[in-house]
């Protein structure tokens, strides 16, 4: 009560205070529920143990493989997803609603379905697998399979975000740039990308984080082989039955990486908003 009377002398914001009070109290249970399991993981393993486990070859292999594959898959998603996102944002297709649904589909598919579907496509007996095998490409059970899975499940995050970013740009800006003599690549490079930068970055980070956490489709389509297809989530799952310490170590690292990525992305997006 005291607070409110003192703050009523400068002009506006009493709503702000209410949000901090009642809403703050009401939001605590959910916030605690979301953070407690993560805290529990960190409490379960000592820092000394963590560092010691980090030296184990299978832990390092899994981390290396996860970082390598997710970097490549995110790059592929950006390169191949940007044109689709732009077409999606600008194009007036007859089937744009169908296209929209197709892009959303991997988001809601159970990972096991994605894994089986990819096996039916790129597996040895899959609809493309036979042709690829004749050309000498063997995909199932290879690192390539891990990357394919990651692109499939994670691409929608980037495409949707980028598409939103692109459709937020006033088309007249692009048109006037064209009138001033800028060609299409120039417009895209100097106008469209800078203006949608935050959406592109945010989408990339979300895609990367989703690829990093991918498990179900990977173990079905790519199998489980240390150093080749055993990414961090797979090593955590196998480790849970063999060596709990390894599972805990990798879980902590996975959480730290994801948290850091999301945090940095949000910070950069924030700064972007402020400067614009």
């Amino acid at each position: 009560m005291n607070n409110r009377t003192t703050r009523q002398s400068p002009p506006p914001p009493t709503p702000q205070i209410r949000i901090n009070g009642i809403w703050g109290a009401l939001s605590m249970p959910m916030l605690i529920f979301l953070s407690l399991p993560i805290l529990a993981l960190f409490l379960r393993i000592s820092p000394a143990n963590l560092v010691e486990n980090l030296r184990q070859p299978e832990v390092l292999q899994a981390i290396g493989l996860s970082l390598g594959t997710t970097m490549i898959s995110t790059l592929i998603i950006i390169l191949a997803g940007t044109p689709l996102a732009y077409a999606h944002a600008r194009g007036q297709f007859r089937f744009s609603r169908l296209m929209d649904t197709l892009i959303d589909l991997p988001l809601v598919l159970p990972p096991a379905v994605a894994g089986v579907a990819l096996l039916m496509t790129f597996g040895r007996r899959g609809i493309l697998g036979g042709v690829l095998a004749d050309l000498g490409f063997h995909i199932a059970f290879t690192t390539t399979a891990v990357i394919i899975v990651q692109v499939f499940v994670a691409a929608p995050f980037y495409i949707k975000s980028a598409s939103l970013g692109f459709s937020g740009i006033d088309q007249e800006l692009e048109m006037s740039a064209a009138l001033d003599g800028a060609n299409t690549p120039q417009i895209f490079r100097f106008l469209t990308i800078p203006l949608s930068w935050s959406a592109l970055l945010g989408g990339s980070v979300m895609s990367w984080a989703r690829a990093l956490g991918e498990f179900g489709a990977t173990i079905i389509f790519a199998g489980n082989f240390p150093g080749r297809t055993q990414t961090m989530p797979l090593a955590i799952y196998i480790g849970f039955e063999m060596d709990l310490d390894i599972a805990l170590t990798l879980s902590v690292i996975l959480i730290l990486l994801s948290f850091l990525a999301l945090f940095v992305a949000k910070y950069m997006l924030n700064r972007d908003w402020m400067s614009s």
Partner: protein
Amino acid sequence: MRLLITRLQCLVVIGLLLGTACGDGANAEEVSNSNQKQLTIYAAASLTEAFQQLGQQFETEQPDVEVVISFAGSQQIAQQLSQGAPGDLFASANEKQMFNVINSGRVLQGSDQEFVHNKLVLILPADNPGRINGFGDLTRSGLDLILADQSVPVGAYAQEMLQRAAQDPRFGTDFKSIVLRNVVSYEENVRAVLTKIILGEADVGIVYASDAAGVPGTDLQVIPIPDEINIIASYFIAPIADSPNDQLAQDFISLVLSPQGQEILSEYGFAELSQHE
């Protein structure tokens, strides 16, 4: 008001029906108590199909007996029995869990016996894309082999078997390391090994014979592994010491050990005792 009356009537009718049903149930129980005996068996999960058929066989032989079988992992059953779960018979997939139950006092020392074997086999897609004709072909380079992970029992047994092969002069000391180079995946359960071989995603996998037996022959080829290096799992059966149906339990064990019982087990991929004795 009319609606309310209708609803009340409904409730009354339902109540009457329930009452009758309960009465019937009680009667049925009395009947079964006076005439029908129940034989309760705890059996390892891998025995599911084979023991269901053995149970039916037993019921046709003794029509006044109802066979009730609870299937679970042997370790889980051993726990339950040690905690005092009531029952007449225990069939374990290994000696260790039988030993645990003997230690708990629920099975008398010396009353348990081996009744069937299970062993590792190679499984291939029906059209044999790797053109494998025998166990020795596992070393051929370019072959895609799928094993279960070492955290899965059959995966650990497969590694042990390859180790034994490496100690056998016929296969050579580097046999295991050469074969392991062909491994493309360590699956997290034995069903995943089966499915991926059926799908033809790899050339060969290693599973238990009883796992492969459930799959129609048109989907899968099975190649035996030489007995000298194979890991042969022994299954043990024993009556529960405090069973009220001791004679029935003994009868069931006799059925399992009889030529007819052994034939049923071998239909489901298990190896008859006589083959190894």
